[in-house]
């Protein structure tokens, strides 16, 4: 059932997550069924109203907002990781489905790839 790109790296401080997002968009651009799973520190990608002015970087919120336009099928977030980073539904961008990042979940996809 398509490919699952797993982003387990924080949005800032490393480029690995951004490059994983580019992979997901490339798959979707070639009409491959693709979903994203945010887990670990990666769930911080999903915070609403990211203000990056002080670190002189572009906010990644806009990049992620393009996911449905590219045809990404689902944006999933690991429930436990969201709790650990105190990320509740009010602080989260729209369209995220909470799930458990388990072997069962990964087993539903024909391929999986981690950010790094």
């Amino acid at each position, binding site marked *: 059932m398509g*490919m699952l790109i797993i982003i387990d790296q924080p949005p800032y401080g490393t480029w*690995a997550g951004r*490059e994983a997002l580019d992979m997901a968009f490339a*798959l979707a651009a*070639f009409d491959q069924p693709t979903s994203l799973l945010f887990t670990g520190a990666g769930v911080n990608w999903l915070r609403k109203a990211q203000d990056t002015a002080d670190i002189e970087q572009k906010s990644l919120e806009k990049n992620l907002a393009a996911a449905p336009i590219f045809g990404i099928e689902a944006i999933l977030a690991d429930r436990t990781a969201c709790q650990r980073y105190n990320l509740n539904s009010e602080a989260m961008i729209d369209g995220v489905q909470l799930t458990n990042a388990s072997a069962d979940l990964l087993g539903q996809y024909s*391929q999986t*790839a981690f950010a790094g």
Partner: protein
Amino acid sequence: MTHSTPDSEKTSFTLVITGAPYSSQAPQTALSFAKATVAAGHTIDRVFLYGDGVHLASALVTAPSDETHWPKQWAAFLEEHEVPGVACIASALRRGLVDSHEQKRYQLGANNLLAPFAIAGLGEWVEGSIKSTRTIYFHAGA
């Protein structure tokens, strides 16, 4: 007696290397995997360098004489087994890895892509992940 794998059990692989040489073991682990794969009668469809992995395709890497030169080791493997080695263009340009074409396009002072590596887009990885039986990732932790 040589060990051979029946055709029906042959597997094709796309290898993705995202860890850089000399700051991670990813290129070394991937090369060991690639050699074992070929020795067992399977095929490597292509090797895709992504993120920091593109440093493996730099012609300017100069390792101390008592250390393994991973770019040259990989280049020799790719040539011997006629496996395409591709560095992602977006990752490569960000990290200062360019071929003569990109040098001209961006009017840069030099190019540094090691043959037989090529520079291409993520489409190469997408194609590999569709066509190959398996795609294996070698990250910095590998």
